[in-house]
C-alpha cells in the first residue's frame, strides 16, 4: 500500500509538471465543446425548429396576397419580413444582402388571377353538372399571373422542394376555398354556409407524429446539440490523453527508469497500476467538468442544458469503461511506440480518425451506411453509443449491453497486447 501511495504521488507530480498535456486534456475539450455546441446548435435549430428566413414583396392589389402572408407566418415554418416598397428587380440582391434563404414576389394581379382561376374552375364544374350555360363559362379567361421564388444557393434541392411544396399547399388551400366560394355564389348563395366552411376547415386527415424509441414513449427525449456534444467531446478529451500518457510511458522506457524499476521488487507493476489510477482520475474529472458545464452553464448561454439520465449506475459504468478504454489504448501506444514523437503523432492522428468515423465530430446517423459500418471499429463509437442510449433513449441495460461488451473486449485486447509487449521486453 505504501509503495502504491508513493507511485501515485510520483505520477501526480509528473502529471502536474506536464503543463501542455494538462491543457490538451482539460482546456482543449472545454473550448471545443463550447464552440462546436454553439455552431451545431444553430444547425439543430435550422433543422428542428425549421424557421427559415423569408423576404416577401407584396404588390397584390387584392386581399389574397395578405392572406398568403398570414398563412406563411402562421405556419411556424418561416420568419417573414415584408418589404413592399421594393420592386422585383431588387429582390434577388435584397435576399442575399438581408441573409434570407428564400424570397417571394407577389404580383399586383395575384388576387385577381386567383379569383379568375377559381371562377373559371367553378363555372366548368357547374357547366359539367348542367347548372350554368357553357357559353358563360367560355367567356371567363384563366389567369397567367405567377409568383416568383428566389432561393439562396446553399439550400439543398430536397429542402428547396419541401419549401415549395409547403408554399404551394398554402396557395392551393386559398384557391380551393375561393373556388368553393364561387361555386356557392354561382348557385345563388351570398357566401359559403358557415357549417360547410367549418367542415372545410377541419377536413384534413390528421397526422400523428411519433418518434421511434426502444423504451416507453413518455420517457423518450428529443436529441439536442448538448446531448450529442457534451458526451462526444468528453470522450474525445479522454482519448486525447494518449499524447500525455503514451508519451509518459515512452519517456520512462527510453530514459531507463523502467529498467531501474525492474530491479525493484513489484515496483514496475505498481508504477503501471498507479498510472492507470491517476489517468482514471483525470478521465473522470474531465467527464465531470464537461457534464457540469453542460448542466450548469449551457442554459445560461442560450444552449440546451444537459439533463442527466435516470440510469445513473449505467452512466457510471459507461463513463468508467470509456475511461478505461482510453487508458488501455494509451498504454498500448506507449509500450509499442519507439519514440515520444511517434507515440504523440500516431496517438493523436489515430484518435482523430477514430473520432471522425466513430460519430464524435458529426453524429453517425447522418453518415452514409458504409461509413456507419466502418465506424463500428472505433472504440469512441461505442462510448458515444452508450451515452446516446443513456441520454436519448432510456438507457436500459439491454440498450447498453452492446457498448459494454465491445468496450470490455477492447480494453481486454489492449491490456493483453500491452502485457505481451512488456513480457517480451522482460519488464514483467
Amino acid at each position, binding site marked *: 500500500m505504501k509503495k502504491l501511495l508513493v507511485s501515485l504521488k510520483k505520477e501526480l507530480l509528473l502529471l502536474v509538471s506536464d503543463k501542455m498535456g494538462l491543457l490538451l486534456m482539460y482546456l482543449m475539450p472545454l473550448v471545443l465543446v463550447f464552440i462546436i455546441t454553439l455552431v451545431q446548435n444553430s444547425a439543430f435549430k435550422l433543422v428542428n425548429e425549421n424557421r427559415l428566413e423569408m423576404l416577401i414583396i407584396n404588390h397584390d392589389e387584392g386581399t389574397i396576397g395578405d392572406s398568403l402572408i398570414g398563412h406563411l407566418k402562421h405556419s411556424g415554418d418561416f420568419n417573414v419580413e415584408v418589404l413592399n416598397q421594393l420592386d422585383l428587380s431588387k429582390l434577388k440582391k435584397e435576399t442575399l444582402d438581408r441573409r434570407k434563404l428564400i424570397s417571394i414576389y407577389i404580383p399586383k394581379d395575384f388576387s385577381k388571377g386567383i379569383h379568375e382561376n377559381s371562377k373559371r374552375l367553378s363555372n366548368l364544374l357547374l357547366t359539367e353538372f348542367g347548372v350554368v350555360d357553357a357559353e358563360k363559362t367560355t367567356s371567363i379567361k384563366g389567369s397567367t399571373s405567377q409568383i416568383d421564388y428566389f432561393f439562396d444557393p446553399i439550400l439543398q434541392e430536397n429542402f428547396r422542394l419541401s419549401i415549395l411544396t409547403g408554399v404551394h399547399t398554402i396557395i392551393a388551400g386559398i384557391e380551393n376555398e375561393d373556388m368553393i366560394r364561387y361555386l356557392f355564389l354561382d348557385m345563388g348563395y351570398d357566401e359559403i354556409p358557415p357549417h360547410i366552411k367549418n367542415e372545410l376547415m377541419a377536413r384534413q386527415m390528421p397526422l400523428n407524429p411519433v418518434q421511434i424509441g426502444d423504451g416507453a414513449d413518455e420517457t423518450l427525449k428529443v436529441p439536442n446539440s448538448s446531448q450529442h456534444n457534451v458526451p462526444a467531446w468528453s470522450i474525445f478529451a479522454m482519448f486525447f490523453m494518449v499524447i500525455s500518457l503514451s508519451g509518459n510511458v515512452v519517456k520512462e522506457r527510453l530514459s531507463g527508469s523502467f529498467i531501474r524499476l525492474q*530491479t*525493484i521488487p513489484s515496483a514496475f507493476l505498481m508504477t503501471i497500476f498507479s498510472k492507470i489510477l491517476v489517468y482514471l482520475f483525470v478521465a473522470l474529472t474531465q467527464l465531470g467538468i464537461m457534464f457540469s458545464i453542460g448542466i450548469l452553464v449551457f442554459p445560461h448561454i442560450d444552449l440546451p442544458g444537459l439533463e442527466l439520465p435516470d440510469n445513473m449506475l449505467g452512466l457510471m459504468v459507461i463513463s468508467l469503461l470509456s475511461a478505461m478504454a482510453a487508458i488501455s489504448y494509451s498504454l498500448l501506444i506507449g509500450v509499442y511506440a519507439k519514440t515520444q514523437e511517434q507515440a504523440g503523432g500516431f496517438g493523436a492522428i489515430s484518435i482523430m480518425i477514430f473520432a471522425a468515423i466513430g460519430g464524435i465530430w458529426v453524429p453517425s446517423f447522418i453518415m452514409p451506411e458504409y461509413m456507419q459500418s466502418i465506424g463500428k471499429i472505433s472504440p469512441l463509437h461505442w462510448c458515444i453509443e452508450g451515452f446516446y442510449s443513456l441520454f436519448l433513449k432510456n438507457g436500459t441495460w439491454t440498450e447498453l449491453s452492446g457498448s459494454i461488451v465491445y468496450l470490455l473486449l477492447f480494453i481486454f485486447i489492449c491490456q493483453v497486447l500491452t502485457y505481451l509487449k512488456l513480457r517480451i521486453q522482460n519488464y514483467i
Partner: protein
Amino acid sequence: MENPIIEVEGVIKYYGNSKEPSLNGINLSIYAGEKFGIFGPNGAGKTTLISILCDILQPTEGSVKYTVENQPLSVADILPQIGFVPQDFAFYAELTAKQNLHFFGGVYGLEKEVCKERTDSLLKTLGLDHVANKRVKTFSGGMKRRINLAIGLIHEPKIVFLDEPTVGVDVQSKMSIIQLLEDLNAKGTTLIYTSHHLREAEDFCSRVALMDHGKIIAVNTVPELLVEHKVANMEELMINLTGKQLRD
C-alpha cells in the same frame, strides 16, 4: 574458502534471432566486499552481463546464484539488496532531486523518516544539497550522473552494480563518485563496476575481469595481471588481449 556472493555458471545469451551470442559461456565468481571491475571494448558484453546479474535480462543458458552470509538466496530475495546504477540516466527529469530519491526510496519500502534522512545525507555527500529542490532536467551532466548514482544507493544495498558510473563527467564529479564508492566499500558493500576508463581499474578495482566477444578472457587482480602478461599498464594489456581492430 568463503562462498562467492555471486556465482555465474555457463551463462550464454542470444538476443532475438541473432546467431552470434552476446555472452558465450561466462563463468565467474565475485566475493563479498570486492570492488570487481568488468572491462572490455564496445560490444564485449559488459552491459548484458550486468543486466543478467540484476535480473533485468534472462540468460539463454546457464545460471546465476547468490549467496549472502552463506545463505543461498533466490532472485526475489536478492533484488531488495541490489543497487543498480545504469549507464543511462534512469530518473524522472521533471521531478526534483529530492522527489526522485523519495520516490525510489519509497518503492524500496523505506520508512518516510529513514528515506528523508538518507536523501539528505546522499545529496550532501554528492554535493547536490543546494539543488535538492530543483528539477533534475536543469542539472549539468555531472550532477545528473551523481543523482543517478544516489538513487541506486538510497536503500543501502549490499551489492551495487555500476554501469559506467563516471562516463561523461568532469574530474571533480568523478572524484566525488569514486570517493563515495570507496566509502561504501569500506563499510562492506560489494561493488561490481564496468568502465572504459582502464586507469580506474588500476586505481579502484580489487579484481578485474576482461571481456571480449562475449567471453571472459582474463580475471585477476590488476598487479597480477600485469605481471602475468608482462605489460606495464592496463591499456597495454587490453590491446595485447583484444587487438587494435576498431569495434562497433
